């Protein structure tokens, strides 16, 4: 019988080794990148399968028990995030494998896109290692290091396209990210001074309110908010996500943003929930509401498809933050389940939209929304993917987005906080509006013949379609996800009671 916890470090070792190898042997980087991503996917599924009945699990790195050593911690939320990263990452990798040859084959970018491909794979694998390490981490300082790995890899990927706009956006992303990391580190130092442990579970049980602890938690939260682009700190997100190469945009919007939000959820919904003030939750929810409205309105105003999708990300992140006060006031696990569903369905839908937008751009040479007529005939799979992903973003049944929003809606009305429900409905209406803007053009005929436009490879269209359909039928995973989240609730109860595990 395989010990599932012992498989956990391999989730980090394999992408790291792959990154090093892909850098050492650039001619083989595609092969190494793909096999590492496939291996990562298989591992994540294996760990989920083997540990579903025995979570939470812990793995002591170096064999040292806490507080001496670092612990990896596997619980339901971790498994969901790991699997989401693995599957979405695999689909994006398959897309990327076709994307770079398509750019090289387009004729005018040979000298640039060759090295881009050589460097995309090691950077993506390092990012994957950072993400896996982040989701598995059970130690406060270890989280800082994985945040650094993730942020640095994401910045390098953002700047990979070499355009001036990407360079500026990547530099801005780097500075904002570094500020966030520094704030997080400072908060960690303060918390360590207060409690002298770094192990998250012990910290959560031992921590007591005091000015030092408040400052530490505030600094940590502000740092993570900077990285998660919550309104009004979202200014860096649209340029960074839009100007990057298409697979990089998908990775950033679907996975990297979720990593820092996962940490906020971990701290505010799990470890430190006992001592965090209710007003803080409402503040986060309020900022989330502003993000929903602001992002939706901005998305309506965009002329380019990729900018619309980027502002849609800002809005969807707002939903995630609105869920926090609802979770705080909800007795059962249903709103936590809703939040997790929103996270994973947004990951799938957003990645699908970015990949589809990339296909559209490759075919047409531009992505101006008003001139997208004829997409349906030229790229049928891609337009279907766009429409289906839009369904999930709007929150129509049976998509994962619907499940998440519906549960949040009912929970907000049930707990008497009806204002969050109003914002959810308003946001969904805005989403319908801006998605309709895009989908409307899918059904108009092209004005002229579409000869001379590039064809897009099947695998690239298929991967985008796969992700979109996955986020649509996310409902079939409901029993699995709810079992994982419910088992979290048991360990959470003991944590809230102040019992040291």
């Amino acid at each position: 019988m395989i010990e599932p916890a012992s498989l956990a470090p391999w989730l980090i070792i394999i992408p790291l080794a792959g990154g090093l190898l892909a850098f050492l042997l650039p001619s083989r980087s595609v092969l190494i990148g793909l096999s590492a991503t496939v291996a990562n996917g298989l591992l994540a599924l294996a760990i989920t399968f083997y540990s579903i009945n025995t979570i939470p699990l812990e793995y002591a790195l170096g064999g040292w028990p806490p507080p001496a050593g670092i612990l990896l911690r596997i619980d339901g939320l971790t498994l969901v995030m790991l699997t989401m990263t693995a599957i979405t990452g695999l689909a994006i990798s398959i897309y990327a494998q076709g994307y770079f040859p398509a750019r090289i084959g387009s004729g005018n970018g040979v000298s640039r896109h060759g090295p881009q491909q050589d460097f995309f794979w090691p950077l993506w694998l390092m990012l994957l290692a950072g993400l896996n390490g982040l989701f598995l981490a059970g130690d406060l300082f270890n989280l800082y290091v994985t945040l650094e790995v993730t942020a640095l890899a994401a910045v390098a990927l953002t700047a990979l396209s070499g355009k001036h706009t990407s360079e500026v956006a990547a530099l801005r992303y780097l500075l904002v990210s570094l500020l966030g990391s520094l704030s997080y580190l400072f908060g960690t130092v303060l918390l360590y001074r207060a409690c002298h442990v770094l192990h998250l579970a012990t910290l959560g049980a031992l921590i007591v309110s005091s000015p030092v602890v408040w400052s530490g938690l505030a600094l940590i939260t502000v740092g993570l908010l900077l990285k998660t682009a919550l309104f009004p700190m979202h200014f860096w997100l649209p340029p960074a996500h839009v100007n990057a190469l298409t697979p990089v945009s998908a990775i950033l919007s679907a996975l990297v943003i979720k990593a820092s939000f996962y940490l906020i959820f971990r701290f505010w919904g799990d470890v430190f929930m006992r001592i965090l003030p209710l007003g803080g939750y409402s503040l986060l929810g309020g900022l989330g509401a502003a993000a929903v409205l602001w992002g939706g309105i901005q998305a309506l105003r965009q002329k380019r498809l990729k900018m619309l999708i980027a502002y849609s990300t800002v809005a969807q992140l707002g939903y995630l933050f609105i869920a926090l006060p609802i979770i705080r006031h909800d007795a059962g696990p249903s709103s936590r389940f809703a939040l997790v569903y929103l996270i994973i369905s947004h990951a799938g839908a957003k990645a699908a939209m970015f990949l589809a937008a990339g296909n559209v751009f490759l075919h047409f040479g531009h992505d101006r929304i008003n001139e997208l007529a004829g997409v349906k005939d030229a790229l049928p799979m891609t337009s279907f993917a766009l429409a289906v992903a839009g369904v999930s973003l709007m929150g129509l049944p049976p998509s994962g987005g619907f499940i998440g929003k519906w549960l949040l809606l009912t929970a907000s009305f049930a707990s008497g906080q009806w204002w969050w429900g109003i914002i959810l409905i308003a946001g969904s209406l805005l989403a319908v509006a801006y998605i309709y803007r895009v989908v409307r053009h899918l059904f108009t005929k092209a004005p002229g013949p579409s000869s001379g436009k590039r064809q897009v490879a099947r695998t690239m269209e298929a991967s985008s379609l796969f992700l979109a359909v996955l986020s649509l039928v996310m409902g079939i995973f409901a029993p699995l996800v709810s079992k994982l989240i419910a088992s979290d609730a048991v360990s959470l109860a003991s944590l809230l009671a102040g019992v040291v595990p």
Partner: protein
Amino acid sequence: MILILFDFVLIITLPLLGWAVLATEDIFKAVVLFVSFGLLMSLAWVRLNAPDVALAEAAIGAGVTGALFLSALNKLERSVKHERRINRDEEKEAINEREI
């Protein structure tokens, strides 16, 4: 007693140096001040009983980073001098390549 005085001087000088780095108009001067900030920071680490960090700060923060900044500054000045030539090249590139 003398150590407290030393600490006091460090505490006063470090923020002042940091302010000076940000407030000088000449970037070269700012880089030089940054290097000296790094050296004083290294002394601060020693006073905090972290000799390892002090060694690393002196070598990397003051040494390598200073060299990196000066090298980048040189490249920047070169590129600004060739501004017109690069301008024309970039326009040509932008017309040829439509990028997302």
